[in-house]
């Protein structure tokens, strides 16, 4: 009987387990997670902070799913090492688990800038249920919250706190919000929309250090120019880093774990999927990290099917983001900023809150930014994907 082990019990791990079971009802399947919870959606954490949903609404499946699928659960305990030669996973408890195929779906962790002292009360990231409960509790108690970072998570958190009645302040190092996923105009449009709702956003600014009060709590954040912003809670939203600690000694890879189109790593019988994996970006034509939920699910499914003996191909990653920002829908995908070179073209329609930017390379659609009227997004994604199909080797950045 085949033995499958999955480390990580979230989008990618869960999709992997379901895919394995769809092919192999008999093999022994074990899922490991250091979080004690049943699989839940991190994406909903800000909806909880906003007060729109309750903790029970986080969970993705019926509580008896793993029992019905006959999956061994090792929840609330950490895997500390993988031994590919012996095909074993070593747990922090000392337990050793053997596998025939292994899926690493360990996801990502909030990236913390190095200038912040570790473990100060009042400095946190937002990644887990516990983080969300902590932030919500403090916000409800009237804490002054500063969000450092203007990416997807920072924007979602600022809107959520605003909806919960708190008045957060954002510190953003780029000249406008969402600089990683939106073009200048789209990012600025989102920013103006949030500012109209009363959210304070400081761009081109960074936190250089923090000041504590006599009790060890957080007192203020000090910005580049020396200005001090009083705050009780500093939420660091400076992106995610892949949680590769289990393979750092085994693979010489910076960034995420590189995988092929069947989600195989360079290590025998070991697969990787989700926020931890480096996958192929069909628009930029290079492997990189694109940590979004739909990628994690599709990659987890592909890995699971291959582990169970099927030859399944991943359709390739397309970086993309959908957001609902205080009533304003925003969708971006692919390459959103065209270099000023001949082969690139851009078409822009902008009227009030309706913004549509399409980016073409050699006459083919490679990216789009939409606000307010976002209905064409699915069709645009389909055309980007079909355009990418037959020009795979012509493109280099």
């Amino acid at each position, binding site marked *: 009987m085949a033995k499958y082990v999955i480390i990580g019990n979230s989008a990618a791990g869960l*999709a992997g387990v*379901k*895919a394995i*079971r*769809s*092919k192999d*009802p*008999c093999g022994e399947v074990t899922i490991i997670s250091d979080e004690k919870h049943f699989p839940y*959606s991190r*994406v*909903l954490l800000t*909806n909880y902070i906003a007060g*729109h*949903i309750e903790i029970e*609404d986080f*969970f*993705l*499946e*019926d509580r008896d799913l793993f*029992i*019905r*699928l*006959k999956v061994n659960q090792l929840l609330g305990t950490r895997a500390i090492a993988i031994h590919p030669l012996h095909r074993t996973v070593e747990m922090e408890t000392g337990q050793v688990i053997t596998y025939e195929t292994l899926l690493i779906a360990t996801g990502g962790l909030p990236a913390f800038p190095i200038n912040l002292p570790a473990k100060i009360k009042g400095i946190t990231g937002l990644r887990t249920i516990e983080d969300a409960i902590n932030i919500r509790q403090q916000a409800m108690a009237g804490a002054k919250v500063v969000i450092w970072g203007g990416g997807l998570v920072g924007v979602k958190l600022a809107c959520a706190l605003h909806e919960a009645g708190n008045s957060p302040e954002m510190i953003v190092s780029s000249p406008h919000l969402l600089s990683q996923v939106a073009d200048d105009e789209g990012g600025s449009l989102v920013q103006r929309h949030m500012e109209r709702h009363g959210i304070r956003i400081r761009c081109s600014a960074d936190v250089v250090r923090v000041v504590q009060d006599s009790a060890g709590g957080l007192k203020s954040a000090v910005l580049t120019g020396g200005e001090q912003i009083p705050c009780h809670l500093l939420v660091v939203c400076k992106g995610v880093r892949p949680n590769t600690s289990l393979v750092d000694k085994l693979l010489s890879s910076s960034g995420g774990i590189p995988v092929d189109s069947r989600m195989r790593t360079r290590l025998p019988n070991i697969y990787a999927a989700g926020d931890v994996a480096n996958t192929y970006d069909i628009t930029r034509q290079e492997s990189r990290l694109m940590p979004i*939920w*739909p990628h994690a*699910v*599709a990659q987890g*499914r592909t890995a699971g099917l291959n582990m169970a003996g099927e030859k399944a191909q991943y359709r390739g990653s397309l970086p*993309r983001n*959908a*957001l*609902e920002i205080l*009533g304003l*829908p925003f*969708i971006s*995908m692919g390459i959103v900023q065209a270099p000023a070179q001949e082969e690139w073209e851009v078409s822009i329609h902008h009227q009030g809150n309706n913004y549509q930017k399409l980016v073409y390379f050699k006459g083919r659609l490679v990216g789009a930014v939409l606000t307010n009227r*976002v*209905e*064409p*997004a*699915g*069709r645009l*994604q*389909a055309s980007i994907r079909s355009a990418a199909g037959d020009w795979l080797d012509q493109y280099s950045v």
Partner: protein
Amino acid sequence: MLSLREESIKCDGCGRCQLACSLGPALRVPVNDQGIPKLRPPLLWFDEIEGRRQIFVCRHCENPICVDACVAGALWVDSKSGMVRVHQNRCIGCYSCVMECPFGALRIVYPVEEPSTNGVVHKCDGCIGWQAPLCAIFCPTGALQTAKNAAERASKRRRERAMFVSLTTGTVSCAAKKHG
């Protein structure tokens, strides 16, 4: 269970399908002294693209990418009927699925009475309980026709796989070596 086949080239944009769709649930409740029941918003849409009114409606795909993209477990495949359905009470209106569907078949609808509250996804519910999709029955041009849905057209092996992945009930049985 019958689903839709679409030959949009035949569509002249008359909109009878939308009317039939809105009316569907209301036809199932008795009209009494309370008067005519409230109509729901239609679950298929028209948009003008390149000068033509085009129809957007769900195909109930065999491997529905909208379900993969749902961050809240709100979209699911009903393994009995093969239809792709929504638990609207789970939806947070995040637009993730809207970004995925190549057929533009999902829309976030905000309640008319309270537009400031969160929107909820709307999509074709497959007219479960009717013999065939009402929109197709009332389409005068043949642009919408009834057809076997993707799950029924798929080979048994593929169907089992697709269905199992979104299995909502049932237990794995190893001895039988089969599932679904």
